[in-house]
């Protein structure tokens, strides 16, 4: 996604990336970054929490319109209200993705 942002930016349209992995977006040299400490799939916050979603979107707009320099990163100071272990489990698919399944199979073959 940071690379897609770069391509859009290079074509002349300003971008901001709202991401749970801002350190990775920095490494990938996204032009503007908003970091959120939210589980995957929840870039703008908790379902039905309009205030939280709006706060995230407003920060994204501020960074999009107000950042002065390439690779500006500002993180949202909002804590996820669900305990980490629970949230960690909740975002993951109920069935492992094909690539994870493949990696697990490779590992189990390697260990036998």
């Amino acid at each position, binding site marked *: *996604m*940071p*690379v*897609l*942002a*770069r*391509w*859009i*930016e*290079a074509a*002349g*349209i*300003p*971008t*901001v*990336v*709202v*991401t749970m*992995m801002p350190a*990775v977006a920095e*490494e*990938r*040299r996204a*032009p503007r970054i908003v*970091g*959120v*400490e*939210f*589980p*995957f*799939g*929840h*870039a*703008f*916050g*908790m*379902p*039905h929490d309009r205030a939280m*979603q*709006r706060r995230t979107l407003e920060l*994204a*707009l501020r960074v*999009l*319109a*107000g950042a002065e320099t*390439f*690779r500006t990163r500002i*993180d*949202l100071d909002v804590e996820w209200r669900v305990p*980490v272990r629970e949230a*960690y489990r*909740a*975002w*993951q*698919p109920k069935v492992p*993705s*094909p*690539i994870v*399944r*493949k990696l697990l199979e490779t590992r189990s073959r390697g260990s036998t």
Partner: protein
Amino acid sequence: MLVDSYKFLPRSFRPLYEGRGAFPGEEAPVWTPFAKRLSESRLALLSSAGIYVKASQPTFDLDREQEHPEWGDPTWRSIPATARPADIAIAHLHIDDEDLLADPEIALPMRALDELAREGVVGGAVANHVAVMGYQDRRLEDWHGTTAGEIVAHLRNEDADGVILAPA
């Protein structure tokens, strides 16, 4: 406060992301100044949560990904800003879709953006936002060769002054 970028990531995945540096050929700065006032700007949203419109669009191709785990559908969907949560479906094998289906705003906050437009904070929203499925082959060949160009053309056509991208 700095976000912990790996808080919700399984520990074994961390080396796949951390310390890998720039994408090959994407080291140089890219920058387009945001020239207008927000209140005079039209904004677009772009989500990689695998969102599509159930009634009128094909799903992202998950069958092929099941057969070829390194591959991810590189196509994109144009999501009308008028789409209701009930119109939206999710095709993404790497995240749980329960919260996204319950409230797509967590990935594509079209209602929240409309609200800010009504209040005059932003000038407006594009008529059609953008959705992709974020799991892609590592070299991003199709995104680079085809999809990115199509999305840029779409955004220009929609007169977008800026884009807010959110990975799933």
